[in-house]
Each structure stands twice: as structure tokens, then as C-alpha cells.
């Protein structure tokens, strides 16, 4: 069955607070630098820990592409997915994990910790985050009201005219 469009979804303060709590615990337990959550369409949701020194918008778009491409590689091998990915650098490394098929958890870590510890603690964090996001998506399902202010569209159109020429 086709849907008219991909449904909008929303991410609220209380969602953010609970998710940040899980990520902060994870960072403390593993001595990792930064944890980021990116949605599968390439949008940054949350950043916790040391503030990134890179462009977060570009990072989110490339993370989603990276994960999606690897998903397809998994299917070519007959695997349903690669649930986690690991990219090793000289000083810094990335560990990525799927959350509820809609979100990607990215952990940035360096030699203050080990891959083994990150992997070990990641399982628990992924389980907790999967439960939180599953509940969040269930809440937004069928809720067609996006909640933007009534005057939002008009003002946004004016800004478009200014930016792209009226």
C-alpha cells in the first residue's frame, strides 16, 4: 500500500531528555567522546558529549548514506541487515548501530577506550533506545497534525522569496 507522502514525525523535549540520559550513561561507562543520533533520511537528532568539531549537517547526511549503502550490501549477501558498522581511524574511530530501523546511533571514540568496551556497552544502549524510539514512532503514527504554528507557512514563504528572489 502506498502512502501519500512519508509521514512527518516530531521529536519533543521530553523525548530528548530521556534519550540524552541513556547516551550520557553510555559515554560515562565507555569513556567515548561523543554520541550522535541521526535519522535514516540524514537529519541530525541529538548530539551528546564533546561538541563535534566537524559540520554536523554534512556528517548526518553522510552517515545515513553510509548506513543505507551497507544495508544494501548486506542484502546482496542474503543478510537482512548489518546492524552495526565500525570505521577505524588512526586516532579516532566510529561505531554505528541501527535503532528501530529509523535512526542510527553513532559513537565517536579515541584511544581513551577500547572497541571491545564500546561494543559491549552498546548492546544495552541500543536496547534502551530501541524501546524509546519504538514508543515515540507509535505515538506519532496517525497523528497527522505536525504542530507548526498557523502563521509558519506564510512567514516561511516570505523568507523563501527573500532568499531565492521574489
Amino acid at each position, binding site marked *: 500500500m502506498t502512502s501519500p507522502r512519508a509521514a512527518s514525525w516530531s521529536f519533543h523535549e521530553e523525548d530528548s531528555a530521556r534519550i540524552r540520559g541513556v547516551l550520557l550513561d553510555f559515554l560515562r561507562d565507555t569513556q567515548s567522546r561523543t554520541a550522535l543520533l541521526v535519522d535514516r533520511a540524514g537529519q541530525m537528532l541529538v548530539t551528546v558529549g564533546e561538541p563535534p568539531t566537524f559540520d554536523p549537517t554534512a556528517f548526518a547526511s553522510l552517515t545515513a548514506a553510509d548506513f543505507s549503502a551497507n544495508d544494501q550490501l548486506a542484502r546482496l549477501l542474503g543478510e537482512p541487515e548489518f546492524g552495526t558498522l565500525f570505521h577505524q581511524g588512526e586516532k579516532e574511530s566510529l561505531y554505528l548501530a541501527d535503532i528501530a530501523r529509523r535512526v542510527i546511533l553513532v559513537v565517536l571514540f579515541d584511544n581513551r577506550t577500547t572497541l571491545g568496551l564500546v561494543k559491549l556497552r552498546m548492546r544495552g544502549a541500543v536496547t534502551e533506545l530501541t524501546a524509546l524510539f519504538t514508543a515515540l514512532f507509535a505515538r506519532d503514527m496517525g497523528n497527522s497534525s505536525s504542530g507548526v*504554528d498557523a502563521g509558519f507557512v506564510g512567514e516561511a514563504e516570505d523568507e523563501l522569496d527573500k532568499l531565492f528572489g521574489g
Partner: protein
Amino acid sequence: MSLINYASREINCKIVYYGPGLGGKTTNLEYVYEKVAPSSKGKLISLATETERTLFFDFLPVDLGTIRGFKTRFHLYTVPGQVYYNASRKLILKGVDGVVFVADSQLERMEANLEAMQNLYDNMTQHGYDLTKLPFVIQYNKRDLPNAAPMADLDAALNPGWTVDDTTRQRVTPDPYRQGEYLVREVDGMWVERVPTFEAVAVRGDGVFDTLKAVSKLVLKTLG
């Protein structure tokens, strides 16, 4: 799948430029990147081959500023046009809010245009999206070339329209962008809807912002 992030007070919308290879999708993004004020744009990322053909995608975030307390941003993506990159093309459509089909007006590219349009419909359907209900515009690029097909021929091939079953939408709707044309009208007793179209010469920027503005406004309306 526009995301409203109440926690960070952000709204992000995804627009994808689709179309046949060498049709001008990347050129559209490059022109936008060149002309938009530095404070309103992010980094232009191109995952391209050594010969500058798009391998995976180009990406450009454009900031609209803070509107009613929400930082509003459009994420512009292109897909690789070459036929054999379909897997990559399909991935980029995930979570799309609006589509620009960049057609190559040259007569000899008509078949490539048709193939790309069919591929767009197929890939959207496989994602579970209905292209006839999503913000969608077509750009006829390379209008300056001597071998450019007439607009009527391009419309007939690429924008024939679809039947409107919803009776509330069965009313004559003039095309705001092309004088004397209609987006919705009755043809031989059937109500037919077509998408807005734009003439362009993307290398010199003609029609680039008109196209982007139109699809962006359609996307904004879906948020309201």
C-alpha cells in the same frame, strides 16, 4: 519525512533532484551554492567519480532562518543519473519531502528522460510513497540548445497528468507559473492533474531558483 525537532527547535525538509544522466541536476545545486548568501548555506558535498559524474549524491543544506522559533532548513540532494546506479538512487529517496525532475530538453534525450521518469515512479512506489500526492515539479533544462524539443512535446511525454478522483479537487486550476496552462482541468470528460513545469538553462542559472522556490513552497504547505 520532514522532521520537526521540538528539542532543538528545528524543521528539516528533504528535496531530491532526479532525472537522466548529464541532465543538469548537479549544475542546479552548484548554481544554488554559488548564489545563496554564505550565511544561508552549508557545505556542498559531492560524492562523484574522478570524471565528476555523480556516484552517490550531491548534498547542499540551505537555511531559511528561524521562523516562529524554528530553525528551518532544506536539504537538497541529487541522485546519480546513470542507469546502472539505481541502488544508490533509490536510497537517496528515503524520507523525501519533495521531488524536482530535471529533464534534458534535447530531442535525442527523450528516451532517457522517459526511462528516468519511469524509474522515479518505480522507486517511489517501492518506498511506499505516492508521487502524485507529494510535492513534485519538473524542470525542462537546456532550453537554449538548438535541438531542444518543443515544450508541448516534453509535456506530452513527461507530464501527461493523472486522473483526479477526489471530487473536491475537480475544479479548473490555472498554472501559476505558465500563462494559459492549467494544473487541473477536464479533458474529454475526465479530470486530469499535471505538475508545475519550469524552463531552465541551469548552467547560467535561468529557472534554477524558480524551480527550487516552487517545490519548496509546496513542501512548506504540507507542514501547515
